[in-house]
């Protein structure tokens, strides 16, 4: 069974996502909404990680067998300026999408295993991930025209 590999992948990509939200928050203090909301969303991801702990315990988190190339890479550093903000938000979006799909994959397995507890968790967490992605998309759309047309 390879579910433990994917549970491990979920766990590590959530950690990357939480870190990335915090990095973007720290790197864009001059955009107060980004700074604050990224903190809020990082905490939301922390809570997901916490909720995932019993699952990890149950299925075992097969870190050893988790091939390195499966991992989602986190953010290296943040950029500056209007276009930099756009790019950083886009990185967050990509990471979030990866997490989103990972939840879906784990959810499919949970269905096959009739694991109600895991199904419930996937359900609740996927909703939050969707909210994160929607916010990112909204903020990117808002920032794009000015950054690309008028920014100096």
């Amino acid at each position: 069974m390879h579910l433990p590999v994917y549970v491990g992948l979920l766990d590590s990509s959530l950690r990357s996502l939480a870190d990335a939200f915090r990095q973007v928050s720290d790197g864009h203090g001059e955009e107060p909404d980004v700074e604050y909301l990224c903190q809020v969303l990082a905490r939301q991801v922390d809570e997901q990680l916490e909720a995932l702990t019993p699952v990890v315990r149950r299925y075992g988190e097969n870190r050893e067998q988790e091939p390195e190339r499966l991992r989602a890479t986190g953010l290296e550093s943040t950029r500056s300026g209007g276009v930099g903000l756009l790019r950083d938000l886009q990185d967050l979006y990509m990471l979030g999408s990866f997490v989103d799909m990972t939840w879906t994959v784990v959810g499919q397995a949970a269905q096959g295993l009739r694991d109600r507890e895991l199904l419930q968790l996937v359900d609740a967490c996927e909703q939050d991930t969707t909210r994160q992605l929607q916010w990112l998309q909204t903020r990117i759309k808002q920032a794009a025209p000015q950054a690309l047309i008028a920014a100096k």
Partner: protein
Amino acid sequence: MTDRIADIWGQRTPHARGTSWPVRLDQHLEEGVAESDVQRWVQSACVLCSNGCACDIAVKDGRMVGVRGRTDDVVNHGRLGPKGLYGSWQWNGRDRLTRPLIRENGELVETDWDTAMDRIVQRSRQLLDEVGSSSHGFYTSGQLFLEEYYTLGVIGKAGLGTPHMDGNTRLCTATAAAALKESFGSDGQPGSYTDIDSCDALFLFGHNMAETQTVLWMRVLDRLHGPDRPRIVAVDPRRTKVADAAVESGGVHLAPLPGTNLALMNGLVNQLITQGWVDEEYVSAHTLGFEELARTVEAYTPEKVSEICRVSPDDLRRAAEIFGTSERVLSTVLQGFYQSHQATAASCQVNNLHLLRGLLGRPGCGVLQMNGQPTAQNTRECGADGDLPGFRNWQNQNHIDQLAELWNVDRLVIPHWAPPTHAMQIWRYVEQGSIDFLWISATNPAASMPELPRIRNILGREDLFVVVQDGFPTETTEFADVVLPAAMWGEKQGTFTNADRTVHLSEQAVEPPGAARSDLDIFLDYARRMDLRDRDGEPLVKWHDPESAFEAWKECTRGRLCDYTGLSYDKLRGGSGVPWPCNAENPDGSDRLYSDGVFPTAPEVCESYGHDLLTGGATPPTNYQAERPDGRAFLKTAEYTPAPDAPSDEYPYICTTGRTVYHFHTRTKTGRGRQLRKAAPEPWVELSPGDAEALGVDEGDLVRVESRRGAMEAPARIGRGRDGTVFLPFHYGYWDTGAPDRQPTAANELTQTEWDPVSKQPLFKVSAVRVTKLAPGQRCAPAPTTTASAPHDPATVPATRGDQGAETREDPGVADPPGQVPSPEHTPGVPQPVLPHAARRS
């Protein structure tokens, strides 16, 4: 004769539930002017708060010399409050801007209109050529007239095509609009002021009505002094007159820690659900989202709420019980919610309380998501705040096409590729230099925006071109490249709409001073000089005066919720103001909306597809459509999160800012009315008795209040607030005292640049601060004793009163109350549901 500085609300005219509010005619004339001296009375309505009290302006020898209330008007039944009586006309003629100014070698010098306007047009053209329309930003007001906003909106949206236009309404009323859109699909006040006359319980959420809308409070007081009086519940960290009334009426005063409103509201909704005070029939037929709402509020038990908000669990239960068991409940919401953390979510929960019990659209059952400024409703309707005119949805291609057709322009010109840029973001773009042309009209951001040190830096930016259009020199005109002298209230004609949708006509009473022009004329002149054209090469703006602008606006509203097509200047002359929607089928206007519980949520009419209330992420149109709202309202909320800038060891107090009854905005008018100025001459810092003792501060001591961003200094009033919170009045800038580097007195020196994710309204009410004593005081603080700033120990401070010139005539019962405006069974502009009844019960 009454001194209405000392006796703010005047004499009582009590009445019973469900009967009409009696008339009382209030009249105040300049000292030495007798009624027989008045040559003309000119119809208008007061523009010193959102209440919109109808009045007549007294004119003598070409000068405004007083006012009286209009007894036949549905809003005020003849009454006026202190600002209306003493502040609406007394500024007249004093210290005005009378000639255009341009900056030459760093100095502002007088010039003529041609030179000033040409300079604007030249810079405007150059930037449009070099960068495009995104280089232009417009920051307007909540104090102009409808015709002016609509003209500005059309110039920005159909002429230049810039998405960067907003009003200072972002600071005062954006959350009202946002909460209405999220719950009901569109802006538009559900309730009416008449609901006060027949409610059994009145909930005021962050709304110090006794000070902010004094005439509305008179209406409440007349119920409280009559038989079968309503119970009041006040949510406010300060012990306001409203809070006193709550206790006296057998209701509750809840004083949550600033920044925790949403936790409190989630707790109230939790109680409604767990105690079974829910109208299941109404909820299933008229709402969507009950399950998710119930899930989100589940954790907010009275005990948990008590921990977060520091209110007693029993008080919370009592408040919920009053809401859950009273037959008719009216709620009002204002800045305590709007300018605080998680503003939209908390305000939506007020809508939810009413939806859960089906208390909407009937006499005494309503929601009033209030406005701050007098004409804020029009900023929102007309497209001057970024939203598209007529409550149109920027994501709905049909709505864009309607506007393109109406204006006869290419649809691609109309900015709808991204959400309209809200004020806070406009300022950020100015800061970053991507907006280089900023036109500020009828507002004073250098005193009213949060974090003033930052705003001054932005306005001082080297290559920024700033146009300021105002009636007075202000803190902001100092930064202008061009200053345009504007005519003000009483000096120009136009209409405006108050917080309960009532439209009034304000006639010109006197000539503007010097070369001052109406804001409408200035905008029209700009459009002409810019040679803005439609698709056929005709002038884009086809109107030339207020009445023709109003007629053009009517066409823009046809078939929409804010339908003005049944109104005209003639109809608004004489008699009462009329609440929209007003069209051929509803010629007398509409008192209340949504009587049948059908809301404008159908995708083809809604103003917005909604947002996630935690993050502000927009709901994708396809998701919205898939929900099939079909006229049902949305029950939305979010989880509580701690506010940014939480108190710490270094900054242990939470500071909130607000108004006093005697002033409006940055006092440019009220500060020039003698009675008002005397009543509240200078700023103060309000401390609780407990905090004052711990700090070793006595009444009148000079203290410094400091946040991470800035500081202000003023004498301390030992007031009646809750421990841990500090209150500052936000009215006091520097136009009459000197520069901020001498003694900083503006509350906004220390407020934060942070906003609600949905409404984008800044968080004025939660700043972590520290307080230090600077010097012992010589006398007590200059804070009024008549209101929420009353001293903890009344014996120590002389009472606030007017001088003999404050005398006001009050004539109760001189006329019959005005007739009742009908409420349509089905709301105009709202599609009938299409799903069969059974399918609507999800």
